[in-house]
Every structure is written in C-alpha cells, then in structure tokens.
C-alpha cells in the first residue's frame, strides 16, 4: 500500500479531503461570514476538479505509456454527451414545446420520434454506463487499429487530433441528433434533484472530488504494477519490449482505453455542473490544452497533472475575466516555457529545490559520462 500512496499522493489526497469537507461547510455559512462560499462558486470548483480528472487520464497514457493523445477532449465530450442525453430526457414535458417524448430541439427540427440511439438514456444507470463505455469503446477500436499498425509518436498525435476534429464536425450537424450547434442544455434536475439547488451542487462537487481521488488511485495502481512497468518500458524502448515477448499493442490499447474511460467520467461529472454540453468541447484546441496542464504539473506524476490542471484553469478564469487579451499570450508562453525550461513540470521544480536544500546526493548516483 505504501507504493500506492507515496508522499505526494498522500499530501494531495489530504488536501483534497480537507477542501471537500470544508467547501460544503463554508457554503452553508451565513452570507455575511468572511469564510462563506457563495453557492454559484461550487459548480465552478467542481468543474476544475473535472479538468483535474481529465489531466490525470491524459497523464496515464502520455506520461507513462508515451501515447500523446491530442484527442482526449473527444472522450471527455462523449462522456458528457451521454449524461447530457439523460438530463435532456429527464426534462420530460417541461420543455418549451412540452413534448413528453422528444427533447425540444427534436421537436424544433420537426422529428416525430426518438432516434434509436436515444433509447435507454432515460434510465440513469444506462446513461452512466454509456458515459464510460462509449469513450472506452471508441478508444479501444481506434487504439486497436492504430497500435496494431504500430502508429506511434507524432503520427498517433495527428490522427487523434483528426479524430476529434471529425467528431467536432459530425456533432455540429443537426442530422446527428445531438442538438447540433447548440448541443444539449436547459437541464432541470438529475435523479429528481434540482440542478440549481445548493445541496445538489454540493453533492456533485463531493462526488467529483471522490472520483478524482479514485482515478488518481486507480492510475497509480496501474503504474506501480508490473503492467505499469511494461508501459514505461514501451515508452523508453518499444522494440526491446517486443523482443522480450510483450505484446506492446495490447498494453497500449489497455492504457488508452482506461484513460479514455476516465476522460469520459470527467465529462459525465462536468455536464450536470456546467449545465451544457456542445460540440465546442470537441475542438482540437481543447485537447491540446489538456497537454499543457499535464506538462506544467509534471508529466508522469499523476498528482502533478491534477495540480497543473487546477493551476492553469484557475489562472485562465482569472485572466479571461480581467485581461481577456492576455490569456492566449499567457497560454502560448506557458507551452514554450514548460517545454524549454521545465521538462519535469512544477513537481520537478519542487523536487529540484528539495534536493538543493539537502546535502549533496550520493556520489554513486552521478551519471557516468
């Protein structure tokens, strides 16, 4: 168990736990109190945690298996759409057109019956399973073809980007039956609880925090297992791993699929808190931004990825509110700085400082020329 929860993981989980306990308490305090958190901020914080899950998902496949996916936003969005479809069904007859069987946008398009792929989504457990299964299945099929043909490195990155781009175009089409341009929105409640009620918001926030902790632990369990070591081996010397008898493609597909399902989970938690899912989530730029979260926090550290996401997204919120013109400059500069000067990210920086304060390390570890 000590392998699973090391110092960083322990600190992060402890901090996460404290926040998860404190936020609901603070939100129930009197509005006048200095420590009170307004109810509208809770979904925002929940949203940040969703991004942190997404970052952990990407770090699992990029940091450990060297698979740089530029399409993880697609898995996130698919998970979001699955839950969004359920929330649409739950609106029922309370929509503008008061049609009990069809979501508003379908009535607007003049459709008479529910498309077959919407069947079952009125039942929450089905939608919840689909939120994991659809991204997972897409990743499995895509990865199975890609890794078996030994598409790797930059090529893989480019075709994952093309994948999310194709999905972006597809979901923009009204004919697809996912609300086209506007996506899915105007949700009322989930499992009978109003989405605008503070208690629902707190519950979703806590749920997201638990999901983040679970994803961190699952990812960590995978990476410290022998399978995780094989993944790193593949990253460092793929053909050597093959000559040892490991079927590299199976490992890659496995980790890619698990990672996509985590991204789907993040999307599923994101949608009820944000209240909308639209094709914009498939934009390739979104997927690339996830990469910088991971790179900033520290690639291959899991906890670092989560921290990176939280830091970048918080800065983004602040900058876009106060200096909207500066945000893209800052993000662009961040990409360059991280790549050129911070190869190990924030956690790497912290590690370096810690080592510097300690006495000189064991001379045996000096790298021979």
């Amino acid at each position, binding site marked *: 168990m000590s392998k699973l929860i090391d110092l960083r993981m322990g600190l992060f989980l402890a901090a996460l736990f404290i926040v998860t306990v404190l936020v609901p308490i603070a939100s129930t305090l009197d509005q006048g109190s200095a420590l009170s958190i307004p109810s509208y901020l809770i979904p925002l914080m929940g949203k940040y945690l969703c991004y942190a899950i997404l970052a952990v998902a990407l770090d699992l496949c990029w940091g450990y298996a060297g698979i*740089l996916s530029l399409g993880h936003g697609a898995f996130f969005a698919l998970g979001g759409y699955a839950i969004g479809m359920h929330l649409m069904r739950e609106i029922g007859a309370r929509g503008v057109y008061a049609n009990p069987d069809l979501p508003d946008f379908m009535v607007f398009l003049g459709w008479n019956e529910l498309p077959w792929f919407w069947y079952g989504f009125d039942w929450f457990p089905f939608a919840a399973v689909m939120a994991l299964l659809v991204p997972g299945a897409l990743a499995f099929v*895509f990865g199975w*073809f*890609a890794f*078996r*043909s*030994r*598409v790797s*490195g*930059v*090529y893989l*990155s*480019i*075709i994952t*980007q*093309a*994948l999310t*781009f*194709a999905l972006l*175009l*597809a979901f*923009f*089409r009204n004919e697809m039956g996912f609300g086209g341009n506007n996506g899915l929105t105007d949700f009322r409640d989930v499992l009978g609880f109003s989405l605008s009620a503070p208690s629902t918001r707190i519950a979703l926030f806590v749920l997201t925090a638990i999901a983040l902790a679970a994803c961190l632990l699952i990812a960590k369990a995978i990476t410290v297992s022998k399978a995780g070591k094989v993944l790193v081996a593949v990253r460092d010397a793929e053909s050597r791993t093959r000559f040892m008898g490991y079927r590299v493609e199976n490992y890659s597909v496995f980790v890619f699929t698990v990672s996509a399902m985590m991204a789907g989970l993040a999307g599923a938690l994101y949608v009820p808190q944000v209240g909308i899912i639209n094709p914009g989530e498939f934009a*390739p*730029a979104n997927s*690339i931004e996830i*990469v*910088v979260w991971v*790179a900033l926090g520290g690639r291959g550290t899991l906890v670092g990825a989560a921290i990176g996401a939280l830091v970048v997204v918080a800065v983004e919120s602040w900058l876009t509110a106060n200096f909207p*013109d500066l*945000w*893209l*400059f800052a*993000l*662009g*500069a*961040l*990409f*360059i700085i*991280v*790549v*050129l000067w911070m*190869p190990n990210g924030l956690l790497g920086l912290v590690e370096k400082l810690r080592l510097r304060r300690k006495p000189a390390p064991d001379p045996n570890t000096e790298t021979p020329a």
Partner: protein
Amino acid sequence: MLLRPFLRLVALCLAMLTPLAASAQTLEELVTQLPAGSYDDRAAVVAEIAATGDPRALAVLEALLEGELEQRNSDGRIVIVGGTRRAPTGTDALTGEDLGELGRRATERIRVNNSLRRTIRTAMGVMTLRDPDPARRLAAAEAALRSPAVEQLDALDAAMQAEELDYIREAQTLAHAATILASDADTDTKLDAVAVISGASALTVQSTLNAYRAAEDPALAAAVADAIEAAERRQALWGQAQNLWFGLSLGSVLLLAAIGLAITFGVMGVINLAHGELVMLGAYTTFLVQETIRTHAPEYFGWSLAIAVPLAFLFVGAVGVAIERGIVRHLYGRPLETLLATWGVSLILQQAVRSVFGPTNREVGTPDWMSGAFQLGEMTVTWPRVAIVIFSLTVFFGLLLTMRYSAMGLQMRAVTQNRAMAANLGIRTGRVDALTFGLGAGIAGLAGVALSQIDNVSPNLGQSYIIDSFLVVVFGGVGNLWGTLAAAMSLGVANKFLEPWAGAVLGKILILIFIILFIQKRPRGLFPQRGRAAEG
C-alpha cells in the same frame, strides 16, 4: 470605327430584300399612319415599320410599347413624351429634336392593346435582330430562342444570312430552329431543327425541347427525347468534369497549405503546429500591402498581389527563422515537445494578430485582371481558381527544383540525411536548419497570399488549414514532395466528388475517417520512403 456605318448599310439593304419590306414606304410615312385606324391596322403598320430595318424605328416602337408615343394636336407630329405628367416634355420620334415643354393637353396618346403589344414586341425582336450593335443582336437572338414567335421566322432567316459574326449566327440559327419547332412546318424540317438544337448547350437543349416531348408526331417526340437524353448525359459528364476541376482547385489550396509543411515536417521532421498561423501572416501581409497601395498609389492596385508575393515570402520566412533559432532548435529529436512549443507559438501569433488587426475579417481585394470567368463546354471556370491552381503548381515545381538542383537544396538534403557527416564536410548545419525552416515558413506565407483571395482573412485563418495540411503530408508519405502533390490532389478531388451526395460536412468527415483508417493501415503514407533506414 468604319464597321458600324457599314453594318447599318448592310442591314438596311437586307431589310429591303425581305418580303415584308415590299411596300417600300419610308419610316416617316409609316409613323404618321400609326394614330389612325383600328388596332389591327396599327399592327400592320408596326410590322411595316419593323420591316424598314431603319435603326430609328426601334425607339419609336419602344415608346409605343411603353405608351409614351403621342401625336401633337397642333401639327400632327409624332412625339415621344417624357418629363412629369404635369409638365410633359417631348422629343421628335424620328429626328430626336427636343421640343421642350408640351403643355398638358397638347398631345394625344397612341393607344395599344395586348395583342398589339405582342406584335410590337415581335417587331422589336425582328428589329434588334439586325441592330448594328453586336451585343444587342446577340441579346435579340437569345430572346427569340427563349420565346420563339413564328412571325419572326423570316426575319431570323434574313438575319442569319446577313450575320457576319459566327457566335451571333450560331445563336440566330438556334433561335431559328426553335421557331421552326413552334411553327407548323413539316416533320422533316422539324427533325432537322431538333438536330440543330441538340448541338447547343445542355441547358438550352432542355429548356427549348422540353415542350415538345409530348409532340403528337411520334418521330418528332422520339427525336426530342433522344436529344434531351443526350444532353443530360453530356451534362452529367461535364458535371463530373466540373467536380474534377473544383477538386483540383481545392487540391491546389491543400497543396499550397501543406507544401511548406512538407519541408518543415517532411524533410526536417519538425512538427510545426504554428504552420497555419504562418499562412495567416502571409494573408495579413497581403492585406497590409493592399492597404498601403490603396492609400498611397491606388493606380497600382493591380500589382498588389505581385508585390505581396515576395514580401510575404521574406517576412514570413524571417518569422520562421526566428522561431527556429529561438525555439525549435533546442528541441531537435523531441517531436512531441516541438509540437507543444509550436502550438504555443501559434497561440501567441494568433492573439498578436487579433490584438493588432482586431478579431473580424479584413477585406482583401482581387485585382481586376484576376476576376471574372470563362465558359468551357458546359462549365464555368473562374479566373481566381485558375490563378490558384497555376500558382500552387508553380510553387510546387519551384520548390522541387530548388531542393534538387540548388546548392542550398543539396545542403538541406545532406543535413537531413546525415547530420554528423554533413557537419564534417563543413556544412554549417545550424544555418541550414534555420534556412530550411525559413523556406518552409516562407512558402506558408505564399500560401497565405493565395488563400487571402478565397478565404476570410481573420486571426483564425490558420486554424482551419493546420489539420488538413498535416493529413495531406502524412497521407502522401513524409519526406516525399511528389507524395504531397498526389495526396493534396486526390483528397481535393475525393472531397468534391463526395460533396454532391454526402454534403460538404459529411464529405469532409468521411475523408477524415478514410485518412485515419489509411494511416493505420499504411502508417508511412501513399509513397513511403523505402530502404533499410525506414525500417528502423
């Protein structure tokens, strides 16, 4: 300038020869006869006026048709009335002499009814068929083709005989044939007419013959059906040609966007996600050049693109060199890191342009010499498309020759194939890297000049091309310029052939899916680099 009076003379002489002109009254005499008699009498006079072939007659008939032709009570002079109703002014119908204000009740309108209006229109058609102005003659012939009137048959015949310009005669021949079909001529004559019409453009064949599909004469109906079917086949064929042409021109756009990448990614192996933004900078360079010319020397606007081409190449090339020296150089051999850093560059460039020029589209004009279109068979070809195809092929072959024959090209290939060896031979590899990257960037700038002509010049311009460009290069086979050409053209053509039945968006999605599957099947593209080195 001698042509015009000459033609007028010819037209006049021929008008005399036609049977209708037999009465040999002058226009002056005929015009004075207009107010008298019944509508039928007036119709006869109109026909005779037309038969004079006198160019002045047209204005008279036009005024009559519009109800502006009146007779002055005082002297019986025929005048064309203008001005306002309160203060009507008059001009002499034949001489055009300005008669000044007429007084409110000084004239009497020459009345027309609907049947007379038809006669007048036909008569005017006959008149304009022999108008001295070729454009009007052509318009008259085309009008006669659209609404064939049996009364015009002889006039068309005469006009055909007299016509000296081939393209007008062709139009007249068609109109003549269409009129024969409308007349009560015998079957053989009509079959000949169908044969004549079937040689026309598919649209003309369809619109002219459609009414005769159900002709009572079975032989005629069959001939008409055959002709229409043949026209449809021809149209379908030209439709394919049109698709092919659109596809090639889209392919040229893709080629332009991808070709710079073929250098930086294909030859150097550098993933430059800022490539699209370099294209955008090229487009904004064009915008700036045009702005400068507009404000300082508008008469040179036709040269704006020619000036923008070298400027965009140099400016964007310089930006490329700066990116290479500042960032990419530190990341050789780390493609994923390069990808991330250049993405950062692309965000910065985008936002910089947005801050300077604003987020909206900027207007980039097309010089006159490049606008317009011409007809090729059944399809319309616009000049800007032709220009882009030629431009992109020129850039492609220029680049190919540069890589193959110039000293710089040789050094580039040497460095990319064996860096250490090239360095040992005294090639300054750092300089070659910078110049190669600059070349790729400069070509992106050229692409920007071309794309400014067909796409919106906005800060997002580059975003829409980056994914396509990478797919083209990867699909064609990295490191192979010919592969890039083949990939761009085949993707462009495939896209345009998919569009009619799948729609633009779905067509694009299908192409994307195809490429994704293709790369998984053949990761090294259409034309992979072969050899042991590639096996690694």
